[in-house]
């Protein structure tokens, strides 16, 4: 088990290092932060001074070494536009993002999983078709279209909810709905597929043949076995809690990490972008790790096979 965990952690760490390295190289090759932050009208001397002040005049490999050295010491750099620690700039935006992504995740689970199960249990009926049509619509309509549609109906026409901002609790409703409905559609599709696959298995037929009531067959045999692919998708959704709302935050002027990322990339605020990517990749990797561990809990065969392999 220790070896299993150590391997998973090492892989997780490598993933984070690769993501950060990739972001570091791409950001520096795709534009000069000095010119972007200072504006093209800034005098060349000021731009040169800016580059020097931020170490951008050094070779890229040296900048990379300095950056990683700093990370090892727990320093994620200073925002070029803000003058404060990049970590502070990013962490103060996280609560706002979680305020919409966590309820949205709950909405996805609350709507998506029951819808998927219901559709599977009523395969090829009108109910199945209606639910799946809704699910397909949910995840194929781009979030900015869905968001604007909801604003048009609930804010402009009915005047029930604010169209954006974060001043009131009700401001979160439309962003949560936008995020939640799209994700619920994805989850419903996955759950339905997983359930259909399980329902076709011999052990389901056996259980039914033994006279076990159908609801018990579903609860004790179908649902646990169908949970693994669903948990995988939910794991990805948990991984994207921090930066999964870039478009929605822009549409609703929600001051979260997603909007910060857009602004930071546009301005080549390197430390902030790298800090966000580091946090996002760490969250994603951690979520995957938890999902891996959950597999063992949900399906004892996986624990046994892992133990046998080691």
């Amino acid at each position, binding site marked *: 088990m220790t070896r299993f965990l150590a391997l998973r952690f090492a892989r997780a760490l490598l993933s984070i290092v690769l993501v950060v390295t990739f972001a570091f190289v791409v950001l520096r090759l*795709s*534009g*000069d932060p000095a*010119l*972007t*932050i*200072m*504006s*093209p*009208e*800034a*005098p*060349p*001397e*000021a731009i040169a*001074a*800016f580059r020097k*002040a*931020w170490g951008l005049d050094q070779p890229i490999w040296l900048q990379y070494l300095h950056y990683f050295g700093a990370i090892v010491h727990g320093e994620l750099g*200073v925002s*070029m*536009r*803000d*003058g*404060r620690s990049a970590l502070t700039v990013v962490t103060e935006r996280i609560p706002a993002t979680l305020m919409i992504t966590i309820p949205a995740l709950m909405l996805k689970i609350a709507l998506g999983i029951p819808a998927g199960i219901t559709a599977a249990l009523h395969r090829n009926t009108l109910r199945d078709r209606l639910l799946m049509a809704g699910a397909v619509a949910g995840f194929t309509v781009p979030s*900015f279209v869905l968001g*604007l549609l909801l*604003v*048009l109906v609930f*804010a*402009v026409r009915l*005047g029930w909810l*604010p*169209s*954006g*901002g974060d001043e009131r609790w009700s401001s979160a409703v439309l962003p949560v709905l936008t995020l939640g409905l799209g994700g619920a559609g994805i989850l419903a599709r996955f759950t339905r597929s997983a359930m259909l696959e399980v329902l076709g298995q011999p052990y389901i037929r056996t259980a039914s043949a033994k006279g076990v009531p159908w609801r018990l067959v579903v609860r004790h045999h179908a649902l646990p076995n169908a949970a693994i692919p669903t948990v995988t998708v939910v794991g990805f959704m948990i991984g994207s809690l921090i930066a999964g709302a870039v478009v929605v935050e*822009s*549409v*609703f*002027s929600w*001051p979260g990490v997603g*909007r*910060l990322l*857009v*602004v930071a990339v546009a301005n*080549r605020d390197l430390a902030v972008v790298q800090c966000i990517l580091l946090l996002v990749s760490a969250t994603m990797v951690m979520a995957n790790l938890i999902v891996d561990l959950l597999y063992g809990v949900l399906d004892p065969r996986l624990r046994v096979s892992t133990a046998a392999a080691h």
Partner: protein
Amino acid sequence: MPRIGRRGAIGLAASAAALPRFAIAQADTRPVVTVAVQKISNSNTLDCLREQSNVGTRMAAMYTERLIDLNYQSKLEPVPGLATEWRRIDDRTVEFTLRPNVRMHNGDLFSAEDVAASFSPQRMFGDTRPSVQGKTLPLSGNIVTMTASKDLPREIPPVARRLWPAFDRVEIVNAQTVRFVNATPDVTIEGRASARGSDIVSGRAFSEAASWLDYARKPVGTGPYRIVEFKPDQSLTLEAHDAYWGGRPPIRQLRLVEVPEVPSRVNGLLAGEFQFACDIPPDQIADIEKNPAFEVQGSLVPNHRLTTFDKHHPQLADPRIRLAMAHAIDRQSIVESLWAGRTRIPAGLQWEFYGRMFVTGWTVPEFDQQKARALVKAAGYKGDAIPYRLLNNYYTNQVFNAQALVEMWRAVGLNVQIEMKENWTQVFERTPTRAVRDWSNSAVFNDPVSSIVSQHGPNGEQQQYGEWENAEMNRLSLELETSTDWDRRHAIFARLLQICEREDPAYTVLHQNAVFTAKRKDIRWKVAPSFAMDFRAQNWGA
């Protein structure tokens, strides 16, 4: 007559003491106004030198003011601001009489000390000297950039020197009188004093700020509204400065919120959450005005859109090709199709508010395809590609405009190829493929040195990036900056237009830029001919 006992009298007195305050608080029925903008500040600061962008200009005059103000309800002509009057002492010196009894946002009385502090090396010029005209702006010293220290960021002195290249010192004559002394003769000292960048802040607040960034996030000025809170990339909250010298501000709280998406700004306006939505593209105007409760006010601003040339590109080395490109452009079509006719074609790189320096009769090269074809033929152009480096709508309608231009150039035999670029670094990159790009030029005060010299002269961006230079232009630019002979200056400016727009084209002007602000129709408010928004009493009624 009812009798009032001792206890009753005490109670009545207590009520009397409490009631008026409550009544006063309740009486403040002034509205809270929310303005949705695409961006509040590009630099994440509110310092007038660090934040020189158009978006930063929008609300700046509401919290800091200059000695000479601009008439935002007319044609931006100079009007008394924090100075009630000014007079020339000699060709290098202007004396300002300061407005008395002006209360700053921190409660201090505005004085000559604040002017001196605002124009001090610590706030504006660093260790630069007033000897930079015609030369590269010098920078030295251990000054850092945008950190939480007290030091002046390195980019501030060059910006300050661009506006005040030969500023020497402020002399305090007495508490209500100051003199601006220039190192060289300059007839534009008054104009420079009215430009953004010459804003006056509290000397005490500046020196007491824990860091430069703390000051720059909350400058203490004299404007009608004081800064309550600035959340970078999110919102700016101002509240009425009731001791404002120009009268009680009409709005209790003025809030700018950053809403990056156009549809979100429009929806918020229609839903009643915003009273104003700024940065509206021309193609949205008709849709908004379908609702009779709303209107879109357009305003021409002192900023022109240009196509800029790199004369060192082999296909553009012959000035006849650049002139042909200028003659090939049907500007009226661009104005009508992309701007719904709500802007205009200006008379070259100049504005009417130049006053006596305006060159009457000057025009942009006329749309004449025959002339353009003749020039192309005379230059011996063989059809080689002319690259056009283009950003994705950094300017309003930029991509549509570029596509239209390419077709217009194709019609006269020029093979211009668009190359999409992601950022300005790629646009400016000094490689053999740099030839044509987009730009816009502003006039920050009412004299051509603020535009044609500042942007195309020896210290202008085009020359600094090595796209274009002209010896006569450089010689005349310096003379225009220092001459005190108005007739001579006018002749020089006319000659500069001739050089830059006809003989050796550095650029060609396409159209004047305009800003569009959507608002509730029942609010009496008039958009200014500027990026600035005016929320003072004389421009408000609901």
